[in-house]
């Protein structure tokens, strides 16, 4: 991995030219991302905790509940697990929100964010570094999940192109959730509050086409579940992996591939400017 190699030297200062501003924002983002990745390396227990969520999810939902869910869906346990794994990939992306929110809230509290704001660095990089670190972490998590899934008999049926496209969608979703977490981290009163709100991730992660198909939910729940951004990514990745045990029945389900791109882009387009506005107003 490229986490520990250093970035190339900065270009010589070239005034405020547009191009150099983008270069600087990129380099600053990488420096900030490296800080967050160093945190994970320096606190391996925390990294382990983060990686444990997907592993536990495979064990719990795949095997403890899996057989029962399979019965409800009229499919054998193995087939349910093949349906389940793409759901767990996306679920893991959603659970990352908690981590992001707590990390940002800690930086607000500790004053590191203030110090960065007083530097002549790119303002967006103060936050984008967190998003980049999250994306790199997501790639690590997904690699582990893919390996684990294969171990449990899951496989992609449509070749490497589909796998790469599916992973791309999952990483895009994580990036969107990262900006949600960043915004929340800037809004909550502190890391303790962020931890208390963590339970809110459960409906986001599970009132969706992740663990059980939305058809098995009561009607009033099936509608929000279908429109949950997570569902679009899950259905789209199931299609790309060739794990389609249950065909989609709703409009949003039929357009999953488009929605799996549109949702994250829309979420970023809303949360990024709000987070930047909040950062500017922090402690004012």
């Amino acid at each position: 991995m490229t986490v520990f190699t250093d970035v190339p030297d900065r270009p010589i200062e070239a005034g405020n030219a547009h191009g150099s501003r983008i270069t600087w924002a990129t380099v600053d983002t990488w420096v900030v991302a490296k800080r967050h990745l160093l945190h994970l390396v320096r606190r391996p227990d925390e990294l382990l905790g983060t990686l444990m969520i997907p592993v536990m999810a495979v064990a719990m939902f795949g095997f403890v509940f899996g057989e029962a869910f399979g019965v409800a869906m009229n499919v054998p346990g193995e087939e349910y697990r093949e349906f389940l794994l793409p759901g767990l990939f996306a679920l893991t992306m959603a659970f990352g929100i908690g981590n992001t929110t707590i990390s940002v809230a800690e930086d607000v509290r500790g004053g590191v964010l203030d110090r960065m704001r007083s530097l002549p660095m790119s303002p967006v990089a103060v936050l984008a570094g967190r998003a980049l670190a999250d994306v790199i972490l997501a790639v690590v998590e997904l690699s582990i999940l893919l390996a684990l899934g294969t171990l449990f008999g899951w496989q992609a049926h449509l070749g490497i192109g589909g796998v790469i496209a599916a992973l791309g969608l999952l990483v895009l979703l994580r990036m969107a959730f990262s900006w949600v977490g960043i915004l929340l981290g800037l809004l909550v009163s502190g890391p303790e509050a962020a931890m208390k709100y963590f339970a809110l991730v459960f409906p986001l992660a599970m009132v969706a086409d992740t663990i059980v198909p939305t058809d098995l939910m009561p009607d009033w729940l099936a509608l929000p579940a279908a429109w949950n951004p997570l569902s679009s990514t899950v259905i789209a990745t199931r299609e790309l992996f060739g794990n389609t045990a249950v065909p989609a029945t709703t409009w949003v389900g039929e357009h999953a591939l488009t929605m799996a791109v549109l949702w994250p882009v829309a979420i970023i387009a809303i949360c990024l400017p709000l987070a930047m506005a909040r950062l500017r107003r922090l402690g004012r």
Partner: protein
Amino acid sequence: MITDEPAIWTQGLRKSYPGRGAALDGIDLAVPAGTVHGLLGPNGAGKTTTVRILATLASFDSGQAWVAGRNVARDRAGVRARIGIAGQYAAVDGVLTGRQNLEMFARLHRMRAREARARADELLERFDLVEAAGRPVRGYSGGMRRRLDLAVSLIRSPRVLFLDEPTTGLDPRSRIEVWDAVRELADSGTTVLLTTQYLEEADRLCSRITMVDRGRVVAEGTPAELKSSVGGRDLDEAFLLITEGA
């Protein structure tokens, strides 16, 4: 470098927070370049708010503020390139090592990787942190943490340094270490605005002192002038008399 133009200049600086009333109610400051200026006052007097405004971290409602020849309201980037800020919260990363902190902030100051390493070495040496350089900061003593914080604020050799209660909560020995560092800085020509609630600290370090209380300036002068203006023997007495009279 001492010029006629003050390094910090404010006039009628006002700020109020919704629901909490006026935090600053017209602060005038004129700090000549190359001097250590004290902002002295009790908790809630408006010291930290003043520093946050001058360091571009907070906005103000009215008045004027100039730092290192730059207009604080209009040229934030210009101000940021010329200041350093350190203080009671010691905003360094507790998980990273001292060296990693310095290198990271040096990179964010737009230094190249090699330049950043060299600068980190230099500052670790200067603040007597060479031995602790490879250890995570959260294992540092209060004094070491504050020295690292000071080192980080000096990465780009700022023209103006804001020190917000740099010795609050430190033991006497660490306090003297920080005082020595501030004196050294002043000798090298950096302008320092120091907020403190310790009168002894202001007396020892500052060439001039602005006393603030409830968002207003209540007295201004050299430590000796402030003492003699009330016929008192020390600043404690002067401070009590001045704030009671205000």
